[in-house]
């Protein structure tokens, strides 16, 4: 049950409380809306994570298969000799993206410009090209999965925090303000009634004196 707050029973205090109640109700509306947005994003992220995980597994298995076929066709040493020249650092663009006030990671693989593969195309077959393509696809899938999984964790934590705020507003702050406002209003009404009764009594006494 909501508790009456310890306040001075004055009209100024009542006005203050009413203002505070209005502000709390407005914020509750926004926080509730934010919670529903975060939940929607969370569910979407969960669905996307499942898809991304499946895609990653498929891409990885295809990449391994393609590499196995390529090394079987060219020979492991020859393939390694060819590929060692095209080793390059993988760069990923990272930054935060904001969703209803929460910062989620945004990752994107930087594609090499010009579409050059780096190895000698005349010395290698299309099997190596296919292995290269599937490996890049696997890399893209891993990065997407990493982004989604971290986002999912952050969204979950934020949903918990927002839920606590919504509950605090809904079950503690707003009810206690409402109860206190009702209590003060009743107190002032009671005071008015007492005042009226007193005035009536004085009026009767004065009338009696005059008689």
């Amino acid at each position, binding site marked *: 049950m909501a508790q*009456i*707050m*310890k*306040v*001075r*029973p004055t009209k100024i205090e009542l006005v*203050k409380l009413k203002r*505070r109640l209005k*502000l*709390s109700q*407005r*914020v509750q*509306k*926004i*926080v*509730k*809306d*934010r919670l*529903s*947005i975060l939940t*929607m*994003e969370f*569910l*979407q992220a969960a669905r*996307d994570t499942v898809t991304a995980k499946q895609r990653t597994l498929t891409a990885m298995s295809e990449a391994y298969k393609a590499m196995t076929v390529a090394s079987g066709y060219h020979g492991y040493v020859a393939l390694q000799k060819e590929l060692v020249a095209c080793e390059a650092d993988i760069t990923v*663009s*990272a*930054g*935060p*993206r*904001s*969703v*209803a*006030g929460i*910062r989620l990671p*945004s990752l*994107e693989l930087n594609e090499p410009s010009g579409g050059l593969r780096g190895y000698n195309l005349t010395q290698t077959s299309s099997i190596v090209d296919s292995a290269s393509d599937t490996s890049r696809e696997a890399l893209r899938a891993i990065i997407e999965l990493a982004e989604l999984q971290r986002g999912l964790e952050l969204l979950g934590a934020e949903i918990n925090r927002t839920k606590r*705020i919504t509950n605090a507003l809904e079950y503690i*702050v707003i009810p206690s303000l409402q109860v206190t406002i009702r*209590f003060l209003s009743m*107190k002032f009404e009671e005071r008015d009634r007492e005042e009226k009764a007193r005035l009536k009594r004085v009026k009767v006494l004065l009338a009696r004196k005059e008689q």
Partner: protein
Amino acid sequence: MIPHPASEVTDSVYDKLLHGWLAGELRLVNKGLPRERRSLDELLLQERPAIRCTDGSEQPVKRNELRLLSDLLEEKERKSLLLPILIEMTGDETEAVVLCRSDIELKVLTSILGMRLNYERPGRVRIYRPQLALLRSKLRTTTQYAFSSSMRND
């Protein structure tokens, strides 16, 4: 009720705390709003496309989303489409409003959602939550939520 002698001091601290916390919540929800919107054409030309937010941070925009949008539009329209597209939350938990400055945004929405949409009022297109989820899943970095002041005033 007899007021506690220290109630005035305690209450004022409590009041300040509550106000600070509530104001913080309001600031938080609109933290990611863009300081300035950029055209699709401009973003496509950048090496690392990003949009500056009101809190000073830079939000990266995904190239594949820009490519998707550029495929949907014609050359001339790319210059007029300003990103991110703003989605206004109306306080109603089932609906959202997409702010469309021109017909280009409406064209993008129609193509992505795969259904015909109409203006609710000039510059405003109302969509429902399932459509919003679909839109956000396709345009994660090129759309942004805005919690409107009109909602706060009702």
